């Protein structure tokens, strides 16, 4: 009895291996956790910290020195504060008929000169009708200045900020209130076609760098009194406007609250692009998968809002963010909906297939060629092996050489000036593809595999997703090179596990695959006819479930 049991006790080697089984993941676990907390601690301020951004109402309650009403004193204090800047201009003049001094303060290049000359200077210096003894704030606003955009400001600091941002300020002797008479009219870009999300059929409008234009584009999509936009100011040192847009009677209030909470926790001196916002509010910053969707298409944003999602628009960037995002969204394009449902469905299935190829085809190549040539048809295996005969490397190195050079080509193609870019890509591709085969470094079959992989990864409609797939592809190749098909399966399982763990603002990333929501499957592999899509996505838990009245 005992001897049988003893004979089954494994030897010390097994125990050593068991120790390895324990130690390696333990190390990775602690490394990951410490890394996670290090990254996380530098990301957002603790809740309730005053240094964070404040909503507009909060800003108003802060007290700061006010304009005194003493013209000279005010002018001097402003000059002291911002007059050193070479681009700040002071235009002093006398108001006709009242004999009081006045000054226009503006930044060179940002004032609307025609408007100021005609509607302010001309009115105040020439055309003024003197019908009362003193000039007052209310009389200026109500009788004298013919401007739609006219706002008052009392605080000195706020006034200076506004002037520096491009507003034209008017201060008149005897008044303790400054008037902002001109809006900043800096140079801006014309509205162009969306560069990163081109479509054949669909609106060609894309967001621009000006927030007010972007919000107006959303408004102009159609009449809806429930489209709400809430303004936030982000950035501690350079403040920027950020708008959270949603449809009031559709969006889930808890989701909205979550988004607002996360945005108000952003703590950073300057938010340069919406990518900053994305990285500061996402759930898991160690994940290779994006947890917000960026888009420059207003139509995409408005469609997402109608599904119950929330859009975040930042001033100074044409990229809006859509949250929450699920995996299936990354493989969708607005064109799926604009075309009829059969082509839409075909594109969808094609994209799932290309995503699979982009992720796994080099890994499959390695595992088939290096480990299991017996599993592919004999004829094909013989052909591939014949073409590989001169290749001096194992298949992993072979694939790596070509994959890396394709990545370099892609990167160079983006950076190069536009006229050379495509030519460079084609020439580089031809030379690398053709010459590498002729030199016997790679096999022609591999060139096909790598080319298909590369093209597949570009056919994913979201640029950021394509990057993710390309990064993971290299990980897949490593797995395949160590354990062949078994490694590839493990890699696939790892990705599925990671995706299942991932959440974007509380929505599981893999919905509607799991948790299965069959009603949402109408918009997954197939794009069902519009008449069948009567309900909003169930995963968003919207207030109004039905899409129809």
């Amino acid at each position, binding site marked *: 009895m005992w001897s049988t049991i003893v004979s089954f006790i494994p030897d010390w080697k097994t125990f050593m291996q068991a120790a390895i089984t324990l130690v390696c993941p333990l190390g990775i676990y602690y490394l990951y956790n410490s890394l996670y907390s290090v990254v996380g601690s530098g990301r957002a301020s603790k809740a309730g910290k005053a240094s964070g951004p404040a909503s507009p109402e909060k800003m108003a309650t802060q007290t700061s020195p006010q304009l005194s009403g003493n013209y000279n004193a005010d002018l001097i204090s402003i000059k002291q504060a911002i007059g050193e800047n070479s681009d700040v201009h002071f235009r002093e003049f006398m108001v006709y008929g009242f004999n009081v001094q006045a000054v226009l303060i503006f930044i060179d290049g940002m004032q609307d000169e025609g408007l100021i000359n005609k509607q302010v200077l001309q009115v105040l210096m020439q055309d003024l009708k003197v019908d009362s003894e003193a000039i007052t704030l209310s009389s200026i606003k109500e009788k004298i200045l013919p401007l739609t955009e006219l706002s008052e400001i009392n605080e000195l600091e706020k006034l200076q900020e506004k002037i520096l941002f491009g507003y034209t300020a008017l201060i008149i002797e005897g008044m303790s209130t400054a008037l902002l008479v001109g809006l900043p009219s800096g140079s801006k870009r014309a509205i162009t076609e969306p560069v990163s999300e081109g479509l054949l059929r669909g609106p060609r409008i894309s967001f621009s760098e000006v927030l007010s234009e972007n919000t107006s584009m959303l408004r102009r999509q159609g009449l809806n009194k429930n489209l709400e936009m809430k303004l936030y100011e982000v950035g501690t040192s350079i403040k920027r406007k950020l708008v959270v847009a949603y449809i009031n009677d559709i969006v889930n209030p808890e989701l909205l609250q979550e988004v607002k909470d996360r945005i108000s926790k952003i703590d950073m001196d300057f938010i340069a692009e919406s990518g900053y916002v994305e990285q500061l509010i996402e759930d898991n910053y160690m994940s290779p998968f994006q947890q917000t969707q960026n888009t420059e298409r207003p139509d995409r944003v408005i469609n997402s809002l109608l599904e119950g999602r929330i859009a975040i628009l930042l001033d100074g960037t044409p990229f809006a963010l859509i949250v929450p995002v699920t995996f299936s969204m990354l493989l969708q394009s607005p064109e799926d909906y604009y075309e009829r449902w059969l082509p839409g469905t075909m594109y969808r299935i094609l994209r799932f297939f290309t995503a699979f190829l982009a992720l796994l085809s080099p890994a499959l190549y390695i595992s088939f060629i290096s480990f299991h040539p017996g*599993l592919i048809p004999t004829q094909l295996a013989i052909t591939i092996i014949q073409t590989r005969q001169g290749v001096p490397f194992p298949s992993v190195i072979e694939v790596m050489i070509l994959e890396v050079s394709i990545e370099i080509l892609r990167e160079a193609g983006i950076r190069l000036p536009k006229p050379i870019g495509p030519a460079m890509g084609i020439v580089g591709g031809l030379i690398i593809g053709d010459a590498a085969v002729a030199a016997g470094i790679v096999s022609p079959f591999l060139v096909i595999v790598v080319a298909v992989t590369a093209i597949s990864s570009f056919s994913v409609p979201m640029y950021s997703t394509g990057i993710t797939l390309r990064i993971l592809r290299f990980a897949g190749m490593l797995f395949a090179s160590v*354990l062949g*098909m078994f490694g590839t399966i493990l890699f696939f399982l790892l990705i599925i596990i990671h995706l299942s763990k991932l959440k974007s603002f509380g929505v599981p990333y893999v919905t509607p695959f799991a948790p299965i929501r069959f009603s949402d499957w109408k918009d997954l592999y197939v794009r069902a006819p519009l008449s069948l899509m009567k309900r909003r996505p169930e995963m968003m838990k919207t207030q109004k479930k039905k899409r129809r009245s």
Partner: protein
Amino acid sequence: MFVRSDDKITSGQASLFLTNTVLGAGILTLPRSVTESAKTPDSWMSVLLGGLIVMLVIFVMVKLSQQFPGKTVYQYSKGIIGKFPGGFLSSLLIIYFIIIAGFEIRVLAEITMFFLLEGTPVWAIVIPFIWVGAYLVFGGINSIARVYQIIFPISLFILILCYILSIRVFDINHLRPVLSEGLMPVIKGLKSTVLVYTGCEVVMTITAFMQHPQHAVKSMLAGIGIPMVLYLLTVIVVVGGLSIDSVTTSTWPTIDLVRSFEISGFFFERFEFPLLVIWMMQMFCNFCSFFFNASLGISQVFKLKIVPVIFGLMPLIFISTMVPKRMNDVFAVGDAIGRMGIILFILLPVLLSVVLIIRKKGLKQNV
């Protein structure tokens, strides 16, 4: 509630959890083991009969678990028969789960070494597998259920496709004569079909995680019904395709069946490769279920945090994988697991239910 932090799964997820726990190794081994013990083409009836018996067992388990909503067997067994006896029974269940987890990986490693990675040492296959499994188990029941929901449709699709394609070698005469030697062979076959349903003990923990425990009976029966139908199909297709003589002589009859025909003009001419892929993914699901249940059990019985428990279980499972030396030892472990399953059933749900009924009805105690 939009952002959920509770560990609850839907009824559908619970069904699939059970399905993925049970459906696994049997796809490849069941046809041989059941035909060996039945020795007639009626082995498929054993599968059916075994499935019905297991359904009864599961019914008992669910009914017992429903008396304690939100509590797993590890928790309520203490309430029913006292702290130490309950802890002892739970520990038995945990050991049982660890042994099955090790057994599953070992079978997977043997198959991988035989078909895919010849000459690779066992540990190189087992250790990464345990690591990936641990990564999933860290995610808790919700992540596990979601992974199962993604994997199962793929498995089902490939499995059914393989069976449909194998219709070309199917011969109904291999399944005849029906009941030529009476019912005895069918009952003999039950011995090996019980093994294939082992793992259904997880019902006693999943029920606690269900969002609507009142639907537990229905969803658990559905959960066991799916593997039952698939196993039945497997046995019918394999025995019908290969005849009982060749089934009993081959180690992995299902793979032999799929290898026995070629579909020319297709990328894969033979379907053993996709079958192996989905089978491995199913084995992964099996393993993770047991891993999760064992770690949950230890953490609940001994009141430990779950993360250190998962880490502690990794080397333990590895050692339990490495204990069998040869393939025969592995199969012996399999048989032992089947017997342990029966004993555990008598000890846990039956004993607990009897005690519970006596205490509630007879002694009018409040448990």
